[in-house]
């Protein structure tokens, strides 16, 4: 399956299709991407367009040269999308599979509710990164804002820099690894031991994000749910 996909990618690498948003409408660009079964595409002049490259379902390679607006790569399935710029709210929201790579910074709710695949942010990410996360993996090379991983259910978030207030508030089963300082932990989120399985997982995500051995997994702290709020209990009233 993976091999077939790589094959399809390779076969189309020769055809580098340019989509220039200076002359194409958003609908035209998205329709071309949504209908393509494979291939490489370069999108020029995004100029902050919203919902660009959203709803892709095939293993395309899409490179966007410039900044994008809200929901770039939203609900992505299988495509590899690289943004050579900053991304607005909700980049790769609800991604199912594939990969989205933001070379700049990302705004709020990056990777919100994502179910699968990998989101890489080279810069910083704003508030609510990975909110209601459902299985997507996220690697942020910079720092992240407040309320990251709020109610996050599954998936892994790796942060090389610092985290803002209320990290992991009301978190369910998602895993968080932060290398820098955490300003404060949210309700029911606690620091946890790093066992071998966690080091392996973290290493594999760092590798996937192209981060070399110069970053040591031993520098990270793991955070996750204390699981105290899983069933309502009157003694926890102050925490709800």
């Amino acid at each position, binding site marked *: 399956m993976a091999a077939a996909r790589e094959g399809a990618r390779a076969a189309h690498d020769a055809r580098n299709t340019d989509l220039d948003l200076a002359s194409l409408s*958003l*609908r035209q660009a*998205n*329709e071309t991407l*949504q209908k393509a079964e494979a291939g490489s595409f370069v999108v020029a002049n995004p100029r902050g367009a*919203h*919902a660009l490259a*959203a*709803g892709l*379902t095939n293993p395309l390679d899409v490179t966007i040269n410039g900044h994008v*607006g*809200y*929901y770039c790569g*939203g*609900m992505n*399935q299988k495509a590899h999308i690289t943004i050579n710029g900053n991304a607005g*709210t*909700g980049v790769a*929201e*609800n991604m*199912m599979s594939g990969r989205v790579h933001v070379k700049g910074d990302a705004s*709020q*709710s990056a990777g*919100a*509710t994502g*179910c699968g695949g990998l989101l890489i942010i080279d810069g910083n990410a704003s508030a*609510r990164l990975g*909110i*209601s996360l*459902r*299985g997507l993996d996220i690697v942020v090379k910079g720092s992240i804002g407040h309320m990251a991983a*709020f*109610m996050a*259910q*599954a998936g892994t978030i790796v942060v090389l820099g610092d985290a803002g207030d209320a990290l992991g508030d*009301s978190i*369910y*089963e998602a895993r968080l690894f932060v290398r820098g300082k955490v300003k404060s932990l949210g309700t029911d989120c606690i620091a946890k031991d790093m066992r071998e399985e966690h080091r392996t997982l973290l290493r594999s995500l760092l590798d996937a994000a192209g981060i070399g051995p110069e970053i040591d997994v031993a520098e990270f702290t793991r955070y996750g749910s204390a699981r105290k709020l*899983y*069933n*309502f209990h*009157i003694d926890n009233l102050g925490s709800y």
Partner: protein
Amino acid sequence: MTGDERWIHTPPRESATFDRATIAEIHRAAATGIYDIRGFGAKRKLPHFDDLLFLGASISRYPLEGYREKCGTNVVLGTRFAKKPIEIKIPITIAGMSFGSLSAPAKEALGRGASAVGTSTTTGDGGMTEEERAASSLLVYQYLPSRYGMEPDQIRRADAIEIVIGQGAKPGGGGMLLGQKISERVAAMRTLPAGIDQRSACRHPDWTGPDDLEIKILELREITGWEKPIYVKVGAARPYYDTALAVKSGADVIVLDGMQGGTAATQDVFIEHCGLPTLAAIRPAVKALTELDMHRKVQLIVSGGIRSGADVAKALALGADAVSIGTAALIALGDNHPRWEEEYRKLGTTAGCYDDWHEGRDPAGITTQDPELTKRLDPVAAGKRLANYLSVLTLECQTIARANGKSHVHNLEPEDLVALTVEAAAMAGVPLAGTNWIPGRGPQD
């Protein structure tokens, strides 16, 4: 014995302020330390459609012949932007109710009943089940704050998309599904461990406010090729402004749910004390649509306490394009049926009062995930009951429309109505019966 002894003590007198229900609630709160959670909608008496009457025909207005002259009931939804609007044959749809709160056979029965009479049904929190997709010829897919179970492939398989901002039973509240109802299947669909209490968020995770909503709608349209109608559902709170903002954000259809609207599980205090009654919400929404020249272009679906064809007709006369039903549909499937009386007694209630839908012990097999109880609901038979009920609502609505001389139920209008109470007259903007007085309106309005 002089007969006067009995007057030494005054006879028992219930307080209007501290009535029995209030006293029982204080005892319950003192014993448990937690607010009361329950299903169903508001139980208090509210100004409602019962406070309105149709005038019928007279010398100046002539009626249509009962069985011979046509009275249309079809409604087209999504004509504003969607490439594929949907057409329902009757002005009544089935509201979004989640798999999780309802059993799989109950969801299937809703689909069967709705499809049999040519109308749509709606998913709910937790995503789409195969049973309901297969059983529903027209299925509206809810896009909720929790996004539990939400997948793009499911959106693509739906006939319309409903962005849920709120519900009438709890405008501003998220959902809750208590651990008892989280079976393995429900848990897996929602990516959460089985048996834990699930809180659904009350705000969407990736947008806030009308400007963001416009972009969210754009994204959903881009993902579905601008084909599907996009509904926006709000609880009745500020219907005039919410309607205007939904129009501004690019909605095709607005779903307005009054405070009587049902819920699977919410705090009683929320159900009874927040939101506007359905009756009070419709005219402000229609006013906003009319001012924007969007009445009938952006369709309005009203819900919250719809029980009869008269309610349907009254909602349409006040300006709705269609109504949707939740509680009444569950009752039609068999909820609160006297045949389960013995079991209701064991649960400390009685047929007609059962509202502990959150506990998952429903004898009728509707609001439960218990495999044994679930088996009691035959989706084919229950679907047939729902279809019967929907047909009755439609016939009743047509009966009233014809008597008022209307060849389509959409021709019903406020002028056909009067109110029985001053409150209802003010809320519905129709005159108090026998007068030309509409409280709150001057001659210029």
